[in-house]
């Protein structure tokens, strides 16, 4: 069984038992999300639950055949699925994803996935060393932050493992195995222990499964941490082809850190460099990456803080800190990096904090929030932007005290609790979909981001097309002509989207084309691509898909290429003969299975809608830039980069868009529920049986 270990570990925390499930039945899903959804389907006895803190919830942490290999920007990614916490109006079956080396180590220990069900009577952590599985008391680490927890577990395992000549010796079924590595630990911090909706899972210094509230799920199960330690290998079908494809990926598509090209376009070809929304805190650093990455995106520094803090972790407090230090970039950087690190230690998802804190600041200035105000808070709001305020604020969130008390169940839920539902409807609280914050790419401008998110379960956070926003708008910001003309870019990108898209018009986000079949097909491609290639085979979202890449003579990226395309790596690892499109078909099946779960949870197409302000108000204030240029055609059919702000979505047209979308996905357009015919065609008749039993099967068209 190339690429897979052949075993899945199922832990029942209620009974304190473990058992092994053969992977064979779940291979069809590829791994990661698909495998997790299928395991959830089989093992969650009540799929109607809508709060992940319900003890009936089942959470699955899954690897893929790529995990533990050298497949570029894939070897260390890991997927988490289960019913989430803090979504609105209900918490759907959802997903999250994180990097590092956890999934690789799980594979080396001999496991393709771990499934957690039930609830432990007391706090526990799971100690898995190759075939050895132990459920251990967590009383000594409960209450600790994620760093202290991991270091404590490292020390425990090291003390219990014989070290010979600098190598740790672990038992295996075939004798002893050896490793120089540390165990890979995934843990919750105080936020997870307190079952805060925005609690996440953290691995090493800066890998977080943030969105979806899985930290709260673990906390509800009294699960503090999972540690894997392994000395095994991943069997590869065609090792020579895999090695050659990895060489080719570097030679033809990747960025060269020793010869960085500032004008380069495309995700795969970016040179290794920390991605920060502040100045680097020190030049004495390395660019650090997840296992198997082609070009890392984080740093480790010589200054005693900020390791692996990047991207959103540096964004949420950035504007506040910049204002507080009055433009001193180095002082701001220190505040931002320390605040990001504190989030990781406390186990808090940083995504809601930026939008959320702007909203709370507004309530404070309106006289609605503060000491002795309608929304009581004794935090020092006059010091917002300072390191002291960040500490107070994050501790309150993590412990559920002060302002954190009302935020435990979610930010939109707090708005309704405080009688501030108007803020959600008008966009003062910019949480446009499923109780989650706007990501910087407003649904009224970046269409696929919003459409996908609302047709799934959470902020999509899938950047395949979003790189266009960054590349084009940064060029325009600096007064430069975009490196790739709009027509050329549309042609290159859409040429990769077969069999869904057959026209460059799919990338035309102009207002007349917003609800077109072409844009819909691009959206469907992206959902199916993400469901399989990103979330199941676990290619990193930040590097894949590589649709355009100006390192190549024709500016075509690695995606779908015969040198270093997704399918090239899949086939080399597994021995299959899959095409890129074959993977999309599995992605379609995964979405169908997910939609069946959402249907059992109570979803009807009527709840699939954005917050009111997305329809009622034009998009006028960009989170990141004051404009939002995107490739568009004009009335003459000529391509330009055009600012797509100052527009809103049309309810009726979007409702019609949904009907057509559901029809194409094999669902009843009246309800959004899957039909038996479509499920049966995907070899999912057993799903149709369950839906029918619950009287939630879609009508045939």
């Amino acid at each position, binding site marked *: 069984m190339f690429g897979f270990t052949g075993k899945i570990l199922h832990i029942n925390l209620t009974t304190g038992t473990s058992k092994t499930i053969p992977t064979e039945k779940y291979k069809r899903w590829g791994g990661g999300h698909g495998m997790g959804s299928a395991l959830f389907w089989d093992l969650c006895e009540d799929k109607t639950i809508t709060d992940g803190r319900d003890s009936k919830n089942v959470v699955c942490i899954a690897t893929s055949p790529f995990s533990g290999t*050298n497949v570029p920007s894939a070897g260390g990614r890991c997927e988490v699925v289960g019913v989430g916490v803090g979504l609105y109006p209900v918490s759907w079956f959802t997903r999250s994803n994180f990097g590092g080396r956890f999934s690789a180590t799980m594979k080396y220990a001999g496991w393709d996935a771990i499934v957690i069900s039930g609830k432990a009577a007391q706090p526990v952590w799971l100690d898995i060393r190759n075939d050895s599985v132990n459920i251990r008391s967590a009383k000594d680490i409960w209450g600790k932050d994620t760093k202290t927890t991991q270091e404590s577990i490292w020390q425990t395992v090291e003390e219990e493992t014989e070290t010979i000549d600098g190598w740790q010796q672990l038992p295996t079924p075939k004798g*002893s195995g050896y490793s*120089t590595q*540390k165990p890979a630990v995934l843990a919750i911090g105080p936020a997870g222990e307190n079952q805060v909706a925005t609690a996440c899972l953290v691995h090493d210094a800066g890998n977080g499964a943030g969105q979806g509230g899985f930290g709260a799920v673990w906390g509800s199960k009294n699960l503090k941490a999972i540690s894997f330690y392994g000395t*095994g290998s991943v069997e590869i079908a065609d090792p020579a082809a895999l090695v050659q494809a990895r060489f080719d990926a570097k030679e033809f598509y990747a960025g060269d850190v*020793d010869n960085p090209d500032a004008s380069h376009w495309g995700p795969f070809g970016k040179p290794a460099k920390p991605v920060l929304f502040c100045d680097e805190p020190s030049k004495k650093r390395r660019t*650090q990456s997840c296992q198997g*990455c082609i070009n890392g995106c984080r740093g*480790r520094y010589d200054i*005693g803080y900020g390791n692996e803090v990047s991207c959103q972790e540096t964004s949420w407090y950035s504007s506040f800190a910049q204002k507080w230090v009055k433009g001193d970039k180095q002082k701001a950087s220190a505040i931002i990096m320390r605040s990001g690190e504190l989030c990781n230690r406390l186990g808090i998802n940083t995504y809601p904090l930026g939008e959320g804190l702007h909203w709370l600041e507004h309530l404070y200035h309106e006289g609605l929030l503060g000491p002795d105000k309608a929304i009581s808070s004794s935090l020092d709001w006059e010091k917002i932007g300072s390191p002291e305020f960040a500490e107070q604020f994050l501790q309150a969130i993590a412990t559920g005290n002060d302002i954190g008390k009302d935020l435990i169940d979610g930010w939109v839920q707090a708005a309704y609790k405080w009688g501030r539902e108007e803020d959600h409807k008008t966009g003062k609280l910019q949480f446009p979909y499923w109780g989650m914050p706007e990501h910087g790419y407003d649904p009224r401008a970046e269409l696929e981001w919003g459409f996908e998110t609302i047709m799934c379960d959470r902020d999509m956070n899938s950047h395949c097309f979003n790189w266009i926003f960054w590349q084009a708008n940064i060029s325009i910001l600096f007064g430069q002509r975009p490196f790739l003309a709009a027509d050329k870019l549309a042609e290159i990108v859409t040429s990769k989207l077969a069999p869904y898209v057959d026209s460059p018009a799919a990338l035309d986000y102009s207002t007349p084309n917003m609800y077109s079949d072409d844009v819909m097909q691009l959206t469907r491609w992206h959902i199916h691509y993400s469901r399989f290639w990103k979330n199941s085979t676990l290619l990193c979202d930040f590097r894949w898909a590589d649709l355009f890449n100006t390192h190549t003579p024709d500016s075509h990226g690695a995606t779908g290429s015969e040198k270093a395309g997704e399918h090239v790596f899949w086939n080399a690892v597994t021995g299959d003969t899959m095409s890129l499109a074959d993977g999309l078909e599995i992605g379609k099946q995964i979405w169908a299975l997910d939609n069946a779960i959402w249907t059992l949870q109570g979803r009807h197409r009527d709840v699939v809608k954005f917050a009111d302000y997305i329809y009622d108000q034009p998009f006028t204030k960009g989170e990141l830039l004051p404009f939002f240029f995107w490739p568009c055609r004009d009335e003459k059919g000529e391509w330009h980069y055009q600012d797509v702000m100052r527009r809103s979505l049309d309810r009726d047209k979007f409702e019609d868009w949904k009907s057509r979308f559901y029809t194409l996905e094999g669902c009843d357009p009246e309800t959004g529920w899957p039909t038996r015919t479509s499920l049966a065609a995907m070899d999912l008749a057993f799903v149709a049986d369950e839906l029918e039993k619950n009287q939630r099967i879609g009508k045939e068209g």
Partner: protein
Amino acid sequence: MSGKAGSTINRRTFLKALGAAGIAASAGGAILLPGNLLVMPHSEGFLVVDMGKCMGCGTCMTTCSLTHHGKASLSLSRIQIEQNSFANWPDDITMSICRQCKDAPCVSACPVNANHVDSENGMVRRIDPDRCIGCMQCIAACPYLPKRLQWDPVQRKVQKCDLCVDTPYLKEKGGPGNTQACVKVCPVGAIAFIDKMPDQKSPHGYEVNLRGKGWEKTGGSREDLHSKS
């Protein structure tokens, strides 16, 4: 002994002369002098690393195990990258490579000449798996921690870096003067192959600065890690 700094006769010439005189028995590329003194020619290739530049992606490790064994593994890798996510740069990562030692104690310790100097492949110190009896004496002889030779628990043999001489899953020719998979695959150029023996006395002889001017453009420091040592 020839080969030391300041010698007027190079080591290879010396060994050739010994061989011509017929006064030594050959053990691979090494020469066994009377009194069980094993003299070995220098390897014609070495790996050097920049511990300040490495990303910690471990791709060198999995590619090493893939090219040699056809499996993705850290435990079977002949280069070992260890890291502590919470430690300060540059001490958060150590890169442990086989040094292809001048007088390789692992070669000397092998009782069956499985671990030998390969005269057909640039004098690289390598283990013939068909001759290895799994006694592990070579591991014990390695003076470095972690030991730069690995025990393969499945094959029950010892392995070590051969500069990619024996790589059945590498499509191009490996070995000194040819491809080293770890060098070729490293995304940031933190591993290099050189043909001049690094300083054997310095604790940092194999630790070099591979950060060029381009590195500065991405915001990093080019400062030598051991400039004060």
